[in-house]
């Protein structure tokens, strides 16, 4: 609980510091809006031209898009320390100062960054969710709301876990590793569309290694009343937990890697 209070306090302080540069902040937030709006426009243009994607209607596609963008940008909003700043902390030696303080390194990394500009991206995502829900004619029940929240939370943990792979690499190699972007940013691009449209090797990648299919596509398909691969209902509750599993594994690996941390000395 103490850690949580610390986190909330740090994020609050960081937020205030971001808001000090008002005009720059507004400009950048607008830029984010244009960016995510552009991504959304692409989906709209695709739906306009192709009408459906292997049995998924336009509304379904908006819903998938919204889920991915809400999960991804919530992670960036609250976990910026991991998703963005970590490699530079290693390079500049900022990480060293964390080692002497009486708190866990991971806690401090998480406390050290937030990205409030992402708020507009999340807004676009929510708009896509509402649009998708209307067009798909979803009848909301308490179970569906629960699964929706579970799916978003678990996807966030998964994304955080995937970004930790990059963090772990950068502990050893000092430089940030662009290759990992293939499963983080690449995963976002690929998995904002239903997984079953892709050929088998890609499906395997996003089910076993970076299980977006389990945290996002299985529950969302169930919400849309089109269960993925015809899997029974209980899978929609169970499979998202793989996100938490990945997060736990990566946390353990992160701590193991920290034992081998050698400062850059700067």
């Amino acid at each position, binding site marked *: 609980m103490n850690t949580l209070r610390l986190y909330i306090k740090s994020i609050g302080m960081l937020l205030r510091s971001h808001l000090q540069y008002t005009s*720059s902040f507004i*400009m*950048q937030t*607008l*830029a984010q809006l*244009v*960016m995510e709006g*552009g*991504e959304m*426009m*692409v989906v709209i*243009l*695709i739906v*306009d*031209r*192709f*009408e*459906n*994607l*292997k049995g998924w209607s336009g509304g379904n596609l908006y819903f998938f898009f919204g889920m991915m963008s809400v999960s991804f940008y919530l992670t960036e909003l609250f976990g910026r320390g991991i998703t963005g700043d970590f490699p530079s902390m290693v390079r500049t030696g900022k990480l060293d100062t964390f080692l002497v303080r009486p708190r866990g390194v991971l806690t401090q990394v998480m406390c050290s960054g937030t990205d409030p500009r992402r708020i507009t991206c999340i807004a676009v995502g929510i708009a896509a969710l509402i649009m998708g829900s209307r067009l798909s004619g979803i009848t909301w029940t308490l179970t569906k709301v629960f699964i929706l929240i579970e799916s978003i939370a678990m996807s966030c943990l998964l994304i955080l876990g995937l970004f930790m792979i990059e963090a772990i690499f950068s502990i050893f190699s000092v*430089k940030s*590793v*662009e*290759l990992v*972007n*293939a499963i983080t940013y*690449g995963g976002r*691009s*690929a998995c904002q*569309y239903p997984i079953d*449209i*892709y*050929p088998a090797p*890609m499906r395997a990648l996003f089910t076993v290694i970076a299980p977006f299919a389990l945290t996002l596509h299985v529950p969302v398909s169930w919400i849309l009343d089109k269960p993925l691969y015809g899997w029974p209902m209980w899978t929609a509750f169970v499979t998202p937990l793989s996100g938490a599993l990945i997060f736990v594994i990566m946390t353990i690996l992160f701590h193991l890697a920290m034992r081998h941390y050698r400062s850059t000395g700067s």
Partner: protein
Amino acid sequence: MSYLTVFKMRLRMELQYRGAMIGGIFCQMFFGIVLVALYRALYAGKTQSVPIENIATYVWLQQAFFRMMFATDTELTDKIKSGDISYDLCRPVNMYAFYYARIAAQKLMGSVMRAVPMLTMAFLLPKGWGISLPVSPLGFALCVPAFVLGFLCVCALENISVAFTMKSLDPRGIAALLNLLMMIMSGNLLPLTLFPESWQKVITLFPYAQLLDAPIRLYTGEYVPADALRIYAVQAFWVVTLIWLGVVMWNANRKRMIVQGG
């Protein structure tokens, strides 16, 4: 020619970062495969006037030359922020041409070094997944000058956004917005050939469509060789206009410049 020397020096600098390049290539290849898989799935439902082979070719050429479009010269923006740019102002050269040469070298080397291995790999992919051969030898011959004009255009655009950075000192404001506009309007997010027909008529006249869209369309045969002269004219118009605009902005910046720091 001093501008040629600047150009050559930047070329050598770009050659230094080979490790980062290999990671970048694989990442870009993956994005390409994801996009092609998506369009293939879309095509399974409803066949289009544009064949899937052309879309795959479009995606691969866009991915291969990604660095040409979006690489920003962070060293240059740092110079602006720190005030080191005043040293450059002391040099007895034309500022616009000096930076133009610098940007051109960075974009050329960065993209060619990535494009060659990427396009080679893309040729090896099965038909309909990878890049296909140009529609005809003539089409390929016509696409080369269009590509050069597009390249001149993108360097002029980049120089304009540097001029904006000079004004606002923050590269993330207007410069970022211009970059985003480019992502959508140049066909990087969605091939321009898949935009609604009525939009295409307007968008293809914009400067952003001249960079890669015009040469790619000549390559795949969406533009017939008879159109070539008209396309070159549009491209040349934008190259001249953008360079003129950039020079005007730089001259204005020089007159009212405030150097940061001491």
